[in-house]
């Protein structure tokens, strides 16, 4: 054993290694990404690791491994689970032979997601047991327990952590590689009555699953992480109030109790719900406050238990208006809820500071595309090329969603991975006079853009597909994908060509341009958009975070006429106002020398950057 300062996701990864995981698959997504990356980094050498092209593929790869008796882990964020829902729903009916943990990172807030969906609810829906850690150090232990549990009951299990556990850091006592459990897979044993899902097998297994999950309620009531915390300040008088909580909110609760008179139950496995433990917790209580994030899972379960056993306990929480219905919990939310619930402030360790007067207008900082980001150039070129025409710009999931921000304003819709293509198609069928564009990133194209493009092509859509190829999965921290020619295991592999895929589908117009060549880009878009049917333009230029900056541009203040065009139209963080408050200036610490501003300056007052020379095809073809 030794101590390390670990991110929650790193602790989960090391825990999986300690549990003898044999195969790990997944698709990047905040806040889950670092789990798989850490496994790849700390791989003792005998673990197969892959970034799958999407969560569905990852789920199926992990299931296959678990069919052989291997221990498998698949990682994703909560919306990724929607993509993987199809195989998982059926897999629960089939079960596994080894251990299989489905790691899903939920994102209360949401901080970087489209939805505030709750994987605990998904557990109930899919009948898959759920483990819900409360801290980084606990997550390390709990994922090992989840693997053992999965192997024992031959079912996939959810390991559901939330952002504050995934991205929190803590000093954690971890095993040395020599202490890791070694799991030897027996190999796949043919047995159609077990591995081939048919209606007859489904109805039989459905009953078995329901029976097993009912039994697991009792088993999990004995699981030590489902626990009743000894009463705080009840003294000899019986405690009449209780708090039921989970995840990081359990930690907020512990720090907010401050001697206030309540009994606390922490639920570590929200499904199957530890009913016996809940009965013990509810004994002699008048009221319970449920402190949880996302769905009122514990609250519903306790209302159910009270109804089932005829208990007269008032259950409070989200459904009674005592807790917020959405958003992330904070120390303040939890503390004030406990104050309202107990009618007591408790003893504060700090004297509260005086109330601050309202501050001056704080800077507004929505996330923006980085200085020198090639997506800015792509969006600007399309915007200029289509000026004056009726258009819709359907965005997608990735850094380029940030194209929605002023002044670019180039993202009219954004729904989920790959959806922009279908939405552009759908709008076009109803509004034939609208020029429909779909923007999709390279990794998103491989994840879910290909089938959508085939759909559009087959169904005679009229639209332009823009592939923003920056040769990486940028938003989640630069993971490789099929177009990069390398894998997370470090192998150099054949690249999948986006152009060839599009041509194979049947697209006649497939053009590739360097977006940092402004005029060529505008000309290419105009030409392509005028063609009938589905046509594609691939803007290819590497993400600035994975390429070396080429010096930086500077503004010749004698030439600058202070027209403000560069600042106003590009919205590049490196373009600022000079000391006179009128002319343009460039922050050299941010500028990458992409030259976009040089190319659009009407008086050529900006120079010093270096134009790429990598464009192939397009106007030079």
């Amino acid at each position, binding site marked *: 054993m030794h*101590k390390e*300062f670990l991110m929650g996701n790193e602790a989960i990864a090391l825990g999986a290694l300690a549990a003898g995981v044999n195969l790990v698959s997944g698709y990047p997504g*905040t*806040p889950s990404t670092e789990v798989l990356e850490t496994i790849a980094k700390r791989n003792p050498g005998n673990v197969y690791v892959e970034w799958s092209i999407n969560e569905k593929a990852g789920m199926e790869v992990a299931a296959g491994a678990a069919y052989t008796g291997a221990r498998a882990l698949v990682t994703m964020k909560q919306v990724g689970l929607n993509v993987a829902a199809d195989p998982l729903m059926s897999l629960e009916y089939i079960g596994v032979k080894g251990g299989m943990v489905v790691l899903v990172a939920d994102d209360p807030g949401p*901080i*970087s997601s489209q939805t505030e969906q709750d994987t605990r609810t998904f557990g109930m829906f899919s009948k898959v047991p759920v483990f819900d850690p409360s*801290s*980084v150090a606990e997550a390390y232990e709990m994922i090992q327990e989840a693997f053992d549990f999965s192997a024992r009951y031959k079912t996939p299990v959810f390991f559901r952590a939330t952002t*504050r556990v995934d*991205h*929190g*850091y*803590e*000093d954690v006592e971890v095993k040395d590689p020599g202490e890791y459990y070694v799991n030897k897979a027996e190999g796949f044993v043919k047995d159609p009555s077990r591995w081939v899902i048919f209606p007859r097998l489904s109805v039989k297994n459905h009953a078995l699953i329901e029976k097993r999950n009912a039994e697991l309620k009792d088993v999990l009531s004995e699981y030590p992480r489902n626990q009743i915390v000894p009463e705080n300040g009840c003294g000899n008088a019986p405690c009449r109030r209780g708090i039921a909580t989970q995840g*990081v909110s359990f*930690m*907020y609760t*512990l*720090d*907010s109790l401050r001697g206030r008179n309540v009994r606390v139950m922490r639920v570590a496995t929200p499904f199957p719900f530890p009913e016996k433990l809940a009965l013990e917790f509810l004994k002699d209580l008048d009221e319970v406050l449920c402190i949880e994030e996302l769905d009122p899972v514990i609250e519903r379960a306790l209302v159910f238990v009270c109804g089932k056993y005829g208990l007269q306990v008032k259950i409070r929480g989200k459904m009674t208006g005592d807790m917020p219905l959405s958003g992330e919990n*904070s*120390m*303040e939310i939890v*503390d004030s809820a406990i104050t309202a619930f107990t009618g007591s402030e408790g003893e504060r*360790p*700090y*004297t*509260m*500071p*005086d109330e*601050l*007067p309202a*501050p*001056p*207008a*704080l*800077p*507004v*900082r*929505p*996330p*923006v*595309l*980085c200085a020198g980001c090639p997506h800015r150039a792509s969006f600007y070129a399309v915007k200029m090329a289509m000026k004056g025409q009726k258009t819709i710009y359907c965005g997608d999931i990735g*850094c380029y969603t*940030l194209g929605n*921000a*002023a*002044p670019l304003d180039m993202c009219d819709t954004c729904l989920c991975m790959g959806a922009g293509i279908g939405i552009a198609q759908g709008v076009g069928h109803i509004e034939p006079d609208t020029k429909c564009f779909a923007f999709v990133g390279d990794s998103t194209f491989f994840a879910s853009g290909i089938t959508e493009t085939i759909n559009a092509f087959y169904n005679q859509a009229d639209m332009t597909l823009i592939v923003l190829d920056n040769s990486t999965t940028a*938003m989640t921290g630069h993971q490789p994908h099929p177009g990069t020619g390398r894998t997370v295991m470090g192998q150099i592999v054949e690249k999948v060509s986006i152009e060839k895929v599009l041509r194979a589908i049947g697209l006649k117009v497939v053009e590739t341009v360097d977006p940092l060549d402004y005029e060529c880009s505008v000309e290419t878009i105009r030409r392509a958009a005028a063609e009938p049917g589905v046509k594609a333009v691939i803007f290819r230029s590497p993400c600035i975070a994975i390429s070396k900056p080429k010096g930086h541009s500077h503004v010749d203040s004698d030439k600058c006429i202070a027209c403000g065009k560069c*600042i*106003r139209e590009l*919205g*590049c*963080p490196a*373009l*600022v*106002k000079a000391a006179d408050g009128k002319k343009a200036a460039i922050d050299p*610490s941010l500028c990458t020398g992409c030259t976009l501003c040089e190319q659009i300056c009407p008086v050529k007052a900006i120079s010093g950057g270096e134009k790429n020379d990598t464009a192939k095809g397009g106007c030079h073809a």
Partner: protein
Amino acid sequence: MRKNIILCGVGGQGTILASRLIATAAMAGNIPIKTAETIGMAQRGGSVFSHLRLGEEANSPLIAKGETDLIIAFEPGEAVRQLPFLKKGGTVVVSRRAVMPVSAMIGKSSYDPEQMIDYLREHTEHLIIVDADRAAQELGSSKTLNVVLLGAAVRSKELGLSEEDLKKAVKERVPERFLDLNMRSLAWSRDNGEE
């Protein structure tokens, strides 16, 4: 020991490395530590923060309002944003240099950094202002603002760690070729802190 510290700034300014340096120093001294930070989309030019909790008593990685011993702010507006977290009589170390948001540049919002400094002066008992522009000029790099601010923080005595502890952490975490620059950065505020 019990210390609650907030690091705040704008994505890309190096708050995460600074948080890591404090953690490394705390670990070396066997002080339990928990942190929570902003990772992901907000890093693209958004407001970012790290909460650090040192000591046995902390369960939660997040700090409650009014319970922070020390705020280390990489930007004046971000210091003001986090000020409600500061305890009565707490300390703020702040870089004077503002990062103007794109929204202010294109006239969609307004931001006056000098007002922020004035507000901090008025509502903070212990305020240490670091002249980041002068530091960058004298050190020959603007990339080590995080370490300059840590140096000022350690000398405020509110960090709960010694300058020696931090030096060791920098040696452990920073690549050899940047070591000299970082050591000079750590020491820079010794003669240049402005109370």
